[in-house]
């Protein structure tokens, strides 16, 4: 396990009963970078994350971590090989405390109790959730719930972390706050971060590279400023947003 392995998916296709959710998608995530995965609703973003994290077996294609073929591995095995993820619906351990949620991640990652507790404290402090450590996870406000989901995933010490809409349901301040936190995560934790997001301006500001899906196919990838100008992207995804933005400007 060298430090500069990458997560590589090639030719990924997923079919549900004849319906193509993904076809021939290639994606690479390096450690230390932030990759944005965007696309309209139903474009296949979550399906791709499910494939990468072992929750969905691809119909075609291959997933590699470094040089190891991990296609079709079960989620827990992938997690222990360095692949972490969060969920759109967060999925906290509701009746356990905030502390136990993170501790479960650290323990699942193979740490002994003492080391797991130390890591849990340092993560909670670093991510500003230490004050709530003794509360039941179910009692957290929504913004902190999402943050806890990320901390819990970090506790496993992943090399690649896939965040499924981490900003969903957050207000503007919370979103800004989250972005600031996320921008430092890859270097601080030496991991590659993949972020699924709807909000274009948000993702363009955060990511080193962007990967755009539409109808299960890759329609563009590259640096944010390139993707922003890509006609296909504007048509498929930015169309309505660009119009709205233009309209607002015209009004002002």
């Amino acid at each position, binding site marked *: 396990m060298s430090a500069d392995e990458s997560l590589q998916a090639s030719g990924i296709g997923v079919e549900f009963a004849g319906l193509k959710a993904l076809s021939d998608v290639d994606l690479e995530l390096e450690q230390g970078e932030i990759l944005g995965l965007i696309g309209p609703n139903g474009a296949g973003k979550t399906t791709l994350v499910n494939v990468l994290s072992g*929750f969905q077996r691809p119909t075609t294609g291959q997933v590699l971590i470094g040089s190891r073929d991990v296609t079709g591995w079960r989620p827990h095995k992938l997690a222990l090989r360095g692949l972490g993820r969060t969920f759109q619906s967060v999925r*906290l351990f*509701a*009746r356990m405390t905030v502390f*136990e949620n993170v501790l479960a991640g650290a*323990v699942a990652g*193979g740490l002994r109790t003492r080391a797991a507790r130390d890591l849990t404290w340092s993560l909670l402090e670093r991510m500003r959730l230490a004050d709530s450590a003794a509360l039941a996870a179910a009692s957290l406000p929504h913004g902190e719930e999402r943050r806890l989901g990320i901390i819990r995933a970090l506790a*496993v010490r992943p090399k690649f972390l896939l965040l499924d809409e981490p900003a969903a349901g957050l207000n503007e301040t919370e979103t800004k706050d989250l972005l600031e936190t996320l921008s430092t995560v890859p270097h601080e934790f030496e991991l590659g971060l993949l972020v699924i997001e709807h909000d274009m301006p948000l993702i363009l500001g955060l990511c080193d590279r962007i990967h755009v899906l539409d109808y299960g196919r890759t329609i563009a990838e590259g640096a944010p400023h390139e993707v922003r100008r890509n006609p296909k992207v504007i048509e498929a995804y930015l169309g309505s947003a660009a119009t709205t933005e233009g309209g607002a400007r015209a009004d002002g």
Partner: protein
Amino acid sequence: MAAEVSVRRSVRTELASRVASLVTLLALVALVTGLASLGSPVLQNVLVNNLINLILVVGLYIFVGNTGVFSFGHIGFMAIGAYSAGLVRIPEETKVSLLQLPPWLERAHLTSLEAVLLGAALAALAAAIVGLPLMRLGGLTAGLGTFAILNIINIVAANWNAFTGGSTGMAGVPTTTGITAALSWALIAIVIAWLFQQTRLCLRVRASREDEPAARALGIKVVPDRALAFVLSAFVCGAAGGLYGQLAGSFGPSAFFLPTTFTVVAMLVVGGRYSLSGAVVGALFLASVSEGLRRLEGGFHIGALHVASRPGLQEVGLAAALLLTLLLRPRGLTGGTELSFTDVGRLRRFAPGRGRRKHEESPA
């Protein structure tokens, strides 16, 4: 930062409060046993039976409470414990006349304590064999799967005449289980369950109970982890079986079937299956209710009014208690919290309708 220091302290003192809750439960069981042991021989017999029930409830809790997967099969592990203990306790000449055993087993003889341990170990072994495939099931299918195990063990016990005595059952087991042995094992069972809750394995199965996909995504191997909890839980129920065999002296397969399963499940659910306190409180509470009802079964007077005997009152009472709990307080009397003498204020939570029901039975 001051707030943070106090949070740290509260998480650190958590261990102290867990110890306090263990001490509370041990003291509670010892106290109730102490009081009941002063009663008539009939009451003493009821006491020992209910201490065995308590061990079963705590054993079942180790699996059901922590993994969130239901089991209707654990009384089968009790049966294995009882028959195994019987086989090494019945005097050799009785074995020769009642059963058809291989010579080494006819000669096999262990002490009462060793017999209980053997029963527990064989029950754990059986759980280990069926555990891995069974733990792939969840929810209702797990309930059915474990129920199938109960049936299999019951049918084997009823038909393996050479070893079990078939449907007539086993007889001639020296009745050595008294209050001391039953109480000691009840306390040991509580300590085992408590120690288990301090382990990383327990943290992992509880995480899987709360949200299985999230647990898998963290790297938790849900099936083998649950299987380990299943084995430990069967060990405790096997011990209860070993004690029961040496209490009853003679018993048949019907002792380890639906009525016992129902009683033990009702005790766990009524007490609250999400905490060890729930298991203990449920066992003590329903044992008391059930004993009260048993006394009324024979008929009673209220002033001039004579109520004729009502056979079955005890069973109906248990069922009604279970039903009322499911309807009014689905998380049980304790609502998932642990009792502790250090926190009498918590007793407020026992007021009806004050259980935290927000997350009841709703997978994320």
